[in-house]
């Protein structure tokens, strides 16, 4: 069993062998991965030591104190949060060894090719086709959408339809797709904030060798659940100090700008402050449950709570700013590598937060999930379950 003392010892050894001050950033990150200190709960040889996940904080604190570089996790969030756990769960030994190290060090950025124009909430209805060639490899044609980081990504996790003659959940297969393939075309998708954080991705005769299939043919939906469950954990599982979220900027504005205050805004601000604090405590309680090994169903609710609060709080701040609220910092079309929901000005926060109740599962779908899986209420009528995908209404 690897305990905290052992991890401190290994971290000290890493720092001694590769002093951060005299080591190239990438060399340090690779050495850290090889020492099993990248994600300690991963297996040995794959960046971890099979240690409890909660002990990662011990390593991170020691490395931060020593001024070691990190892997800029916000830049590679899809790789770390979604691709990696799925590859770990379903990848072959060869796939795990090939992809996880450069994924973690950030040498290779990942994106996610799941949503399609015709498959949003009903993701399993997706129509991107993967057809097997005579040599056993695959040729993929279709269109994906809402793909963040596609323009900088080296790899993508991709789900595509490999059998249209069976019901929709059964005919999907999961692939690792090379984003440098000549059949890939990435077009920025400009959104209401003015920038293009996302892309549309067109796949035309993209060849994928069968060695880049993840899981069995037809098992893609099951594999994708691992990806999507990790997405919701990542969205709901953050640890925040008081006023650490969207309520922070508006509270500071309120304190610094007494001339903007009105009684109506005061009442609304206090109500939202209380709700934000309650949501923060709920997230903290969820975290404590996970640490104690008692995961509760509360995680499903956190995204719902934060989506609504982000929208209402940022909307309030636009109003609070009065004349400034009528302005907008910058409509220039850009393709940012990083997304910061709390960054930029109030107008941007207001517009960007509108996506919070759509991305990663709409609020409406999540309410169904809570009602059915947590409360045990009857499921929605499903007329599509036993119908071949090719016969579904489109």
């Amino acid at each position, binding site marked *: 069993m690897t305990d905290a003392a052992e991890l401190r010892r290994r971290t000290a050894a890493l720092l001694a062998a590769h002093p951060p001050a005299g080591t190239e950033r990438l060399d340090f990150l690779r050495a850290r991965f090889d020492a099993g200190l990248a994600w300690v709960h991963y297996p040995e040889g794959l960046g971890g030591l099979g240690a409890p996940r909660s002990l990662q904080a011990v390593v991170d604190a020691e490395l931060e104190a020593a001024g070691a570089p990190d892997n800029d996790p916000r830049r590679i969030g899809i790789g770390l949060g979604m691709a990696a756990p799925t590859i770990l769960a379903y990848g072959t030994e060869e796939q795990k060894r090939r992809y996880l190290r450069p994924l973690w060090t950030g040498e290779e950025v990942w994106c996610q090719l799941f949503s399609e124009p015709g498959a949003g909430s009903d993701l399993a209805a997706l129509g991107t086709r993967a057809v097997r060639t005579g040599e056993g490899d695959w040729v993929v044609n279709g269109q994906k959408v809402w793909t963040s980081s596609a323009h900088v990504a080296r790899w993508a996790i991709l789900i595509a339809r490999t059998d249209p003659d069976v019901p929709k959940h059964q005919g999907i297969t999961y692939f690792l797709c090379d984003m440098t393939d000549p059949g890939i075309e990435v077009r920025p998708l400009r959104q209401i904030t003015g920038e293009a954080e996302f892309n549309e991705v067109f796949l035309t005769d993209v060849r994928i060798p069968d060695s880049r299939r993840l899981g069995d043919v037809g098992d893609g939906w099951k594999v994708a659940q691992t990806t999507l469950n990790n997405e919701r954990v990542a969205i709901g599982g953050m640890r925040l100090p008081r006023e650490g979220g969207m309520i922070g900027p508006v509270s500071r504005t309120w304190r610094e700008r007494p001339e903007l205050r009105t009684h109506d805004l005061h009442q609304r601000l*206090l109500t939202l*402050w*209380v709700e934000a604090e*309650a949501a923060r*405590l709920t997230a903290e309680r969820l975290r404590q*449950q996970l640490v104690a090994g008692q995961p509760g169903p509360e995680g499903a609710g956190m995204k719902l709570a934060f989506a609504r609060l982000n929208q209402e709080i940022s909307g309030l701040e636009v109003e609070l700013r009065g004349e400034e609220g009528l302005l907008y910092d910058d409509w220039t079309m850009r393709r940012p590598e990083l997304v910061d929901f709390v960054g930029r000005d109030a107008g941007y926060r207001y517009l960007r937060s509108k996506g919070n109740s759509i991305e990663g599962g709409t609020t*409406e779908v999540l*309410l169904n999930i809570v009602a059915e899986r947590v*409360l045990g*209420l009857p499921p929605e009528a499903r007329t599509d379950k036993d119908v071949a995908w090719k016969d579904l209404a489109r």
Partner: protein
Amino acid sequence: MSTQPDLLYTEEEEALRAAVRDLLADHCDAAGVIARVESDAPHDLAAWKALAEGMGLAGLLVPEDRGGQGATHREAAVVLEELGRAVAPLPYLTSAVVATEALLACAADDLLAELASGRRIGALAVALNVPAGGAYKVVRFEDGALHGELTGIADAAVADVLLLPADDGGLYAVDASAATVTPRPSLDLTRPLATVTLDGAPGRLLGDAEPAVRRALRAGAGLLASEQLGLADWTLTETVRYLKERKQFNRPVGGFQALKHRLAQLWLEVVNLRAAARNAADALATCSDDIDVAVAVAQAFAAPVAVHAAEEALQLHGGIGMTWEHPVHLYLKRAKADAIAYGTAGAHREALAELVDLRAP
């Protein structure tokens, strides 16, 4: 205090919950409570005796060397969650929390031990709607005796001893037999109010009223959130159960998406309330320097959630929810009264405006 609050329940707290729930299942079933609240004795003193004396739970907040159990607000909060679930007509919040906290601030260990034992019931004679720090009415201290009338005193009808603030700044104990206690028809049938009238009653000076009352009302507000949590949790659970069973249009009503979404939203509110209520109980238990904020957040959040939960339960039960026979009205009345008790949500938001420096225009 920079350490994180413990927002979970310990195994001991879960065992306590199970024991209280068993006791209330035996004593405070819904039909029994409905029948009782219209009788001359709306309070269930048999259940009180079993809970307070039998299980020793009236003394949770009192140190062992002062005659209590030496537990904390965390355990008292769990008891209150269960009392809220059952809308039990017991004077636990008023005697074992509020009156007890007032005595803990004074030098009156004999009285404190009596309340802690559950053999006597105490009531702080401050109107139920007053928040910590709010203005309250006092009686007149004249020629060594107390005179005057105090209204809105919860559970006074079953109190053996009344704790009264007087115009000389003192807090006095008066035996209930020396006062006239007149029950008033109350919105909350399970926590009825009474008017207390004193006409030259002898009183025993306990100490300064202001700090004792402030401390008592703050603890009352903080732990009321746990009672509201229990209430909201019961109404949600019972409504979900009923909607799985109730059929209209040849299907369970709970399968209609409009209702599923409302129940899912309510679940989310209850989940948030649990965290806020645990935070307040833990802050009180650990004497955190965050108590004022934790209590104000819990109360500002709890009242609308508990009322919403009870109102949704009534609406989603349809016609049966409007009947006297079904217990949901007891929960609605308790929830609405709780929204005023120890300060409204608005009063607690106003307190927060000062506490977290988000000041009014």
